[in-house]
């Protein structure tokens, strides 16, 4: 993609002012409910060679937090552990079994192979039957030690539950500070546990609708910085940024095709009629997908690329429709219960549809089985919106309001486990869960 023009003037005072620390709001996770019978697991402190660059980092603590916050596990406190084994053959199974533990994770880190890296060996044991379930090695750069711990937690989650964990993933979201009309908008990316939040764009004008590219390298979003909406794509690693749609009228709701080559988006033209289009990023070729006098917006691609789901009020109130991503296909209505069903998102396997529904005077997140048709409401708020599936499909993150502030929350797809991600200041909204990282 095209790079920004390289013109290098003297650094202006404005540039320095802009650099003054934009400290991102910190997110903190609270579990609000979990499963009634969590699996008992212990994560022993990892042994670290003194020369290991990760020597000061507590792998076990981060893994413990991940597993505990998933709501599926109960973690044995470190002070109750019968010793601190770092190898499977040093684990006395009966000692752990007697404490009600089913699984024990042990690990150790040594320096190398390259400078700044540690090699982490970890093993997962079923102490009920003595079986060793995992014995793996991970090279972890000290600078991204937390990510290494999340990856180990992902493996444990997968081995015990049969579903890959999504701890080593990221979320994008929008935060808003200040009272109207002088608000400040930030677009942020953080680890899935809310840590390591980084501001990737800041504006005095609204930022909205962040969407991840399938490879996790880019975000598409809407910015009003030019005093009208425009769609941008921005490479996270470099900040390289490209305005891909600034047409007359509305430019909104970008969604990447599964192969990353196209964006579905909403355009209105000067006449103000919103319809769904597909924009090919390499050629800028634009294809009109819907053509209806109602509002057609909030498109999202099905994971197989064969359909686009979108919101339309062509039948009165907003409902979710499906259409082929080619011109001329006739949209088929997907949601029927109630008068307001909008902003669809597909589960990674394409079998479930999450959307916002109006029920009992409140906007809530609902999920519908696309094969069976039945839907159920997952959340209890009055202003819940913007659901986004974790890449393992097990959890959704969404935005809600609590005491007048926008907050983020998660709910498991089965509705059993809920968490809140609280921001220490300002409002947070529009979470988008990123893909698995390579």
């Amino acid at each position: 993609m095209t790079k920004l023009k390289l013109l290098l003037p003297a650094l202006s005072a404005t540039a320095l002012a802009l650099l003054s620390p934009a400290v991102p709001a910190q997110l903190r996770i609270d579990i609000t409910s979990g499963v009634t019978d969590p699996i008992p697991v212990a994560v022993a402190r990892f042994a670290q060679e003194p020369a290991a660059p990760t020597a000061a980092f507590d792998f076990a603590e981060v893994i413990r937090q991940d597993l505990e916050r998933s709501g599926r596990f109960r973690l044995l406190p470190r002070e109750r552990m019968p010793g601190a084994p770092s190898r499977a053959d040093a684990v006395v199974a009966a000692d752990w079994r007697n404490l009600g533990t089913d699984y024990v994770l042990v690990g150790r880190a040594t320096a190398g192979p390259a400078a700044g890296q540690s090699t982490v060996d970890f093993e997962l044991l079923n102490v009920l039957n003595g079986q060793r379930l995992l014995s793996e090695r991970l090279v972890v750069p000290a600078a991204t030690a937390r990510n290494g711990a999340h990856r180990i937690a992902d493996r444990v989650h997968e081995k015990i539950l049969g579903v890959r964990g999504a701890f080593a993933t990221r979320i994008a979201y929008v935060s808003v500070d200040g009272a109207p009309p002088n608000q400040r908008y930030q677009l942020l990316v953080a680890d899935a546990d809310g840590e390591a939040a980084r501001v990737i764009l800041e504006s005095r004008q609204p930022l909205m609708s962040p969407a991840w590219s399938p490879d996790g390298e880019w975000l598409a979003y809407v910015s009003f910085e030019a005093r009208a909406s425009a769609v941008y794509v921005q490479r996270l690693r470099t900040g390289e940024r490209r305005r891909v749609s600034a047409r007359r009228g509305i430019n909104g709701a970008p969604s990447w095709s599964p192969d990353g080559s196209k964006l579905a988006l909403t355009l209105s033209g000067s006449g103000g009629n919103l319809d769904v289009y597909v924009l090919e990023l390499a050629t800028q070729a634009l294809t009109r997908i819907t053509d209806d006098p109602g509002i057609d917006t909030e498109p999202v691609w099905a994971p197989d690329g064969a359909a686009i789901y979108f919101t339309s009020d062509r039948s009165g109130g907003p409902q979710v429709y499906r259409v082929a991503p080619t011109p001329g296909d006739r949209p088929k209505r997907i949601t029927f219960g109630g008068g307001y069903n909008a902003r669809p998102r597909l589960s990674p396997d394409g079998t479930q549809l999450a959307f916002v529904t109006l029920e009992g005077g409140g906007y809530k997140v609902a999920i519908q089985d696309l094969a069976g048709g039945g839907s159920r409401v997952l959340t209890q708020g009055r202003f819940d919106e913007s659901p986004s599936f974790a890449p393992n499909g097990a959890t959704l993150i969404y935005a809600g309001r609590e005491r007048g502030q926008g907050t983020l929350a998660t709910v498991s797809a089965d509705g059993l486990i809920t968490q809140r991600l609280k921001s220490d200041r300002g409002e947070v909204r529009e979470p988008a869960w990123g893909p698995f990282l390579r």
Partner: protein
Amino acid sequence: MKKLLPLAVALFAVSLAAGCASKRAKTDGAGEESVASSGATTTPDDSASASGIESAGSVGGDMGAGAGPTGELANRRIIYFAFDSDEIRPDDQALLARHAQWIAANPGTRVRLEGHTDERGTREYNIGLGERRAQAVRRALALQGGAELQVPTVSFGEERPAAAGETEEAFSQNRRVEIVYGN
């Protein structure tokens, strides 16, 4: 993070330069490109600056106050709407007639209509509802001031509330179209 500061500074310099060097986008001019025909540009406009993940870019300065009607009409630039409605109240028709007359008499002044919603409902759908309101005001102005009145619209949906809070009072202040002069 600290190690990357020089890189961040360089990125800022580059991106600001790109912003200054590129043409300001004519996002509110009449007679601009239509949806189907326009291409995209590759540089950000206005004071846009991109940033790497280790640093923040800052974009979108405040709108300046511009020329427009003076006196009482200057203070009556906001049309309010009922919930889920784009219908202009009868009382506001007379007000819109006065704005239409002023606009027709001052053809050199830029005008645009900014549509807004309250916070209920999904964000991009609300962009659509805000646009509907702005278009309703545009049609009313054209009706009052003649077909040659081509006033551009922009919808902010629920993104730029006038009042904070989850009360009906706040909601009713946020469901509005602002007539903005001089931008």
